[in-house]
Each structure stands twice: as structure tokens, then as C-alpha cells.
């Protein structure tokens, strides 16, 4: 089996957190056909990284958002194109309509890279 290498140069180099050059950022797919725009995922996102054109996490928590349809959410990106999503999938577990799926998992680069996990995401398996 191919093992991920962790060289001395990996060890001493801290990645830039906001670029896709160093990190594989988590990313999500929102199915516009299934999404009912209820805003549950936005409210639950640990980092407040999901937003729609009109609504952010804090609007929902503080009660500023009045209900109704908020629009299909997307993942917030930094200026250099990385997202802050870590693919924890709290949003997908709570989504009542199953509209969310993971596009890519989170794997920071260089010093912080994953060594014993592959990039495939699997649901728990009953052995």
C-alpha cells in the first residue's frame, strides 16, 4: 500500500492557510433541486462558513433573519480561493432534505498533512 511521505521539508514548512496551492480545502455540493433553502445548515456550520447572498450564520442566531426562503447556500471562500470548510458534514447530517454532499475533504498541506487517512470519505461500515 502506498504510504504518504512526510519529509523533513514538509516538517519545517508551515502552509499558507488561505491558498489551494498548499492545502486541499473542504468543499460541498448543494443540490439546488433538493434544497428547500431552510437555512438549517447555515445555522449549524461550526465556523460560520456557509452563507447565501442574503443570510449569514449570525443573522439566523440573533433572530435577524425572519424565516422564509434564504436561498441555496454556498461555502465561503477566502480571497485566494481556499474555503474554510473542514468537511465535518454537520450540515449534511442535519439537512432534512439530503441536499448536501461532500466534494472534497479537508487535508492541510506540508507540516499538517494527513498521513494515515486517505482522501476517500466513507460512512461507518458495519463489520
Amino acid at each position, binding site marked *: 500500500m502506498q*504510504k504518504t511521505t512526510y519529509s523533513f521539508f514538509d516538517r519545517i514548512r508551515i502552509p499558507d492557510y488561505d491558498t489551494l496551492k498548499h492545502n486541499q480545502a473542504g468543499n460541498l455540493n448543494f443540490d439546488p433541486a433538493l434544497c428547500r433553502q431552510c437555512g438549517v445548515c447555515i445555522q449549524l456550520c461550526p465556523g460560520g462558513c456557509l452563507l447565501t447572498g442574503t443570510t449569514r450564520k449570525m443573522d439566523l442566531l440573533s433572530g435577524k433573519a425572519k424565516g422564509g426562503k434564504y436561498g441555496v447556500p454556498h461555502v465561503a471562500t477566502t480571497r485566494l480561493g481556499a474555503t474554510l470548510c473542514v468537511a465535518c458534514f454537520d450540515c449534511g*447530517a*442535519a439537512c432534512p432534505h439530503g441536499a448536501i454532499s461532500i466534494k472534497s475533504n479537508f487535508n492541510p498541506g506540508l507540516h499538517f498533512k494527513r498521513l494515515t487517512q*486517505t482522501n476517500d*470519505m466513507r*460512512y461507518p461500515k458495519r463489520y
Partner: protein
Amino acid sequence: MNVRNEELSPLGKYTEGMPWNAVEKIIMERRSVRSFRKDPLPDSMIERILEAGRFAPSAGNCQPWRFIVVKSPEVLAAMERDAARFVKLLMFFLDYTRGGWLRRLLVRPIGKLFIRTRMNEFHPVPFSLMSKIGTGETHVFHNAPTLILMAEDRRGVSCPAMDIGICGQNMALTAHSLGAGSCWIGLIKLLMYMPWWKKRLGIKYPYRLEVCLAVGWQKPKADGIVPREVQIIEWFEGGLKDKPRYTKQGE
């Protein structure tokens, strides 16, 4: 996706490929809940959760924990305010991921230096979380109605921090099995940089406060099964000189 109660396997039995039992269901479906109802859990329920912590395994049965339950909205609001202010100050000097090019140019070397000295605290995940707290896009303590602080007795046997982890996980799983929600919060560490919080919470030698557990009613219901990365497992089964056998757990 979630397992219905009628489909659960009985406890204390194993056959290959059987459905989850009640304990596994709670373990698989537990999500860290970060959105709570305003009303706290009843005191009896909090005591029931703490009871699970009291009976957690610990090295040499030394029980190196001290529980502090914070329910007062006034104290919780002050904790939130102080922690958020501290994060804002920190991120003003360290967060190179926001603002323009000039800010990035000036702040990135300082940020990198700090990250190098404290790799765990400034790992990409907490760093981006603090970046979001700094811009006021999320809370530190998630407006939780109750916090259970787990102070660690540093004189404990072997590795007391490990015992705190075991104890806290017992309580988290109990909370979810009772229908409540819980979330580990490590950012409470920030309050330990402020002498007035150390004094107010009574944290001095031999105690150290590194982590707390937010508990409350879930709003909306957030528990559910999620996919996770496939894990590579090494099995040492042959002789002393044999290489391990690798398997992919979960595939």
C-alpha cells in the same frame, strides 16, 4: 440515514455485519452541537451527565478532575465577551487571511512565527475558527445555556489530560443518549490568560483548565451519521521480522 430504535441489535452480542446496537448508534450519530435552545437542561439531567463523568476510568483510579458547572447567563455572557475580545486582539496581529495584499504582506511573517511556536493552537482549523470569531461571524461558546468546565488536577497519575478526555467523552455520550446535545470547546483556554477569570473560577495550582463541554437542548436536531476519511490500519500478525499488513478501515 439515522438508525431507528426498532432496528437496533441487542447489547452484549456480536454477529458479523449486524445492525448497530444502542451504544454504537449514539457513538456514530453524535455530532458536536453548536446551536442550542435558550432554556438550560434541568439540574437533575446535568447531575445525571456528571454522574457518567464520575464513573469514567482514570489512571490508577486517581480521578484527576474537578467539575465546574456554569449556568449563570451573566457569567456566560462575560465569558463570551472576554474570549471574543481576546480573539479579536490576537487575530488583529496574526490573521493574514483577511484584508488586502498589504495586510497579508505585513502580517504573514508574524502569523507564521506564532504558528511555528504553537503548532497545535494555531493549526489551520482553530486558526480559521478564530479568524471567523475575529470578524464576528461565529460565537466562542455557541450561546450554550450550560458549560461544564473540566479542570485537570496536574498531580494525577501518568497523564491526567488523558483522563479528562475519557471523562468528558463519557459525559458527552450520556448527554446525547438522553436527547441533549454537547460540544467540546477548547477555546476556554483563552480565559486562562486573564487573571480575573483564573481568580473567579478558582484555577490555580494544582488545577489547569484546558477544555469544557457545552451542553443543552439541540435546536435544530443535529445528530446524524456522517462520512469520514478512510483510515489505514497496520496489523502485526507474523514473526518479528515480518512487515505489517495494511488494511483500509471503512472501505
